[in-house]
């Protein structure tokens, strides 16, 4: 057992300034330690050493895949010519709402993180791809960028270091698939957001065919703190060397206090729900939790209260789920699992870009079959059909949306099979289809 278990440091990093109403303004940011990290390194620390610092902090991507940030940067070739940073602010994974608040409440923290990433990798142009619905966060970032340009933190020869970097915002127009990193790049190039076949990965051939780093807003928002306080400090928060720092857990659904909770990696889900979110609302019993956005396989109350599953990347992977985007959707005993699965299946069907027939057809079938079960019109064969669709939807497509849909529904069907069977036998939802939306 890990030594740190009893002593997880409860320290806020990226949301530390959230309570401070002056933080979105440059004055407030500067007064609270802002733009100190770039002063510390620009023109003074070798970019390679910055990459090493981020590597040894153990920082992993907060966008979905949890890929080590410094390692991703190190894949970018040293070659001459333009390289790009695409900031993923498309936040569309159901259950996730942290990047919106990071942009609204502390936009300069993101800008400073972008500057650090660009300096480390030798990038002179960054685009912040913000989902189209996020008009207000877009304005917050635009205002912060104007301030930062005026102060000389962004633009030519920043702080006299000789390093130049331009940062632009780019609004999306409503398509979940543009959160997938290569779909994002296509969209940024003015096309349909169709994900690209990989390899080549964006680090080699990304935006306009040039080496490109894609990082999530929360990932980048951690960087100024790692530079300021050192990688050891960051690695000291969280449960082990592979799960360092905090996560912005986005807790929604049936808890007493839904909201954003920045907590160290490695708490149990039970601790998050009971100690931080006030437990299940109205004294009801917990039924299930989706721990990392809609793509993360659902967990049962037994896994949470008896097996005490931890909310770090690797512990969630060990139980067949994932940390994903940090979206924690809590469902109490009044929730119909068939209905919940159906809702998410229709989401994936709606958002499939349609390039791969397996995904286009598969998501459609799954939505149709679960929809039939929800309506009490299911037949016993439906469950075996779902079982047989599952493996075909995995590992056969251009991006992992298809896999995500398969992982989602198969976990629901496996862990709550009795509820699915009951819908077929009774021809009606035993709970009265409580959340028809």
């Amino acid at each position, binding site marked *: 057992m890990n030594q740190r278990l009893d002593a997880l440091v409860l320290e806020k990093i990226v949301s530390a300034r959230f309570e401070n109403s002056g933080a979105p303004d440059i004055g407030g940011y500067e007064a609270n330690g802002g733009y100190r990290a770039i002063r510390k390194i620009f023109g003074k620390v070798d970019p390679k050493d910055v990459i090493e610092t981020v590597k040894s902090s153990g920082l992993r991507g907060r966008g979905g895949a949890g890929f080590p940030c410094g390692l991703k940067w190190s894949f970018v070739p040293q070659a001459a010519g333009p390289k790009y940073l695409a900031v993923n602010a498309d936040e569309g994974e159901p259950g996730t709402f942290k990047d919106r608040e990071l942009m609204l409440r502390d936009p300069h923290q993101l800008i400073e993180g972008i500057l650090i990433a660009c300096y480390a990798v030798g990038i002179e142009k960054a685009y912040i791809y913000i989902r189209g619905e996020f008009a*207000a966060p877009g304005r917050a970032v635009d205002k912060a960028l104007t301030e930062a340009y005026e102060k000389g933190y962004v633009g030519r020869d920043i702080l006299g270091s000789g390093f130049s970097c331009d940062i632009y915002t780019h*609004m999306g127009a409503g398509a979940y698939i543009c959160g997938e990193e290569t779909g994002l790049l296509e969209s940024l190039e003015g096309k349909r957001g169709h994900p690209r076949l990989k390899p080549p990965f964006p680090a080699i051939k990304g935006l306009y065919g040039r080496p490109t780093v894609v990082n999530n807003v929360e990932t980048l928002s951690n960087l100024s703190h790692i530079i300021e306080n050192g990688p050891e400090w960051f690695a000291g928060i969280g449960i082990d060397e592979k799960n360092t720092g905090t996560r912005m857990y986005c807790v929604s659904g049936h808890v007493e206090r839904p909201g954003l909770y920045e907590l160290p990696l490695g708490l149990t889900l039970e601790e998050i729900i009971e100690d931080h979110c006030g437990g299940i609302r109205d004294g009801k019993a917990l039924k299930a939790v989706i721990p990392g956005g809609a793509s993360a396989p659902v967990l049962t109350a037994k896994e949470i209260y008896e097996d005490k599953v931890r909310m770090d990347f690797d512990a969630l992977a060990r139980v067949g789920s994932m940390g994903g985007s940090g979206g924690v959707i809590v469902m109490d005993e009044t929730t119909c699992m068939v209905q919940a699965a159906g809702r998410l299946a229709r989401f994936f069907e709606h958002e499939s870009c349609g390039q791969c027939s397996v995904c286009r057809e598969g998501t459609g079938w799954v939505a149709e079959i679960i929809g039939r079960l929800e309506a009490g019109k299911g037949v016993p064969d439906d469950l075996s059909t779902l079982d047989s669709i599952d493996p075909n939807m995995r590992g056969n497509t251009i991006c992992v949306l298809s896999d995500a849909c398969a992982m989602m529904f198969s976990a629901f069907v496996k862990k709550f099979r009795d509820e699915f069977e009951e819908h077929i036998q009774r021809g009606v939802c035993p709970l009265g289809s409580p959340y028809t939306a």
Partner: protein
Amino acid sequence: MSAGRFPHSAKEERFEFAPEARAELERIIGKYPVKRSALIPALWIAQKQNGYITSSVMQHVAEIFDVSPMEVWGVVTFYNMLKTGPVGEFHVQICNNLSCALMGAGALLRHLEKRLGVKAGETRGDGKFSIEKMECLGACGGAPCVQINEDYFERMTPEAMDEIISALERGEYVPPVGADEVAPPGEGAAAAAEDKVKE
């Protein structure tokens, strides 16, 4: 992401960007090493000017970007927020993904449909309100969440929604509710109502 057919409409008036809109577009084109990247921003600007995207909008944009109108059509139909038909002066977008459903989005939608006298996916006869069911708006901690034009309204109840709708009907300013409150002012539901007041 249903495609439908390219909307040929011969009778339609010719669309051109207003001079300020064209200047704004040129500024945006300057942000990118490849002009095509400004295509979606261009469509946003056109939609703002024209209300929605018509065949003549697509033809005009296609000429500017030196691509075919069908290519532009392919892009337009891919993105949910680019509209090929008119929506209401107040476009009420209600999230119906899981977190919001768990917190009562279904009942809220049915209430809204009754209160506004229009079904989801439709625009009211007087052009004032339209309702659209949305996938996750990225504000699930404030479920159920509704977006009116640009502004977010979190933790909505039928009562709170009624107050907002009544105020909009009276042409009053309605500030967003939830995290959007901290953002610099914009052109959301609030601005549309302000314009009305000025008229």
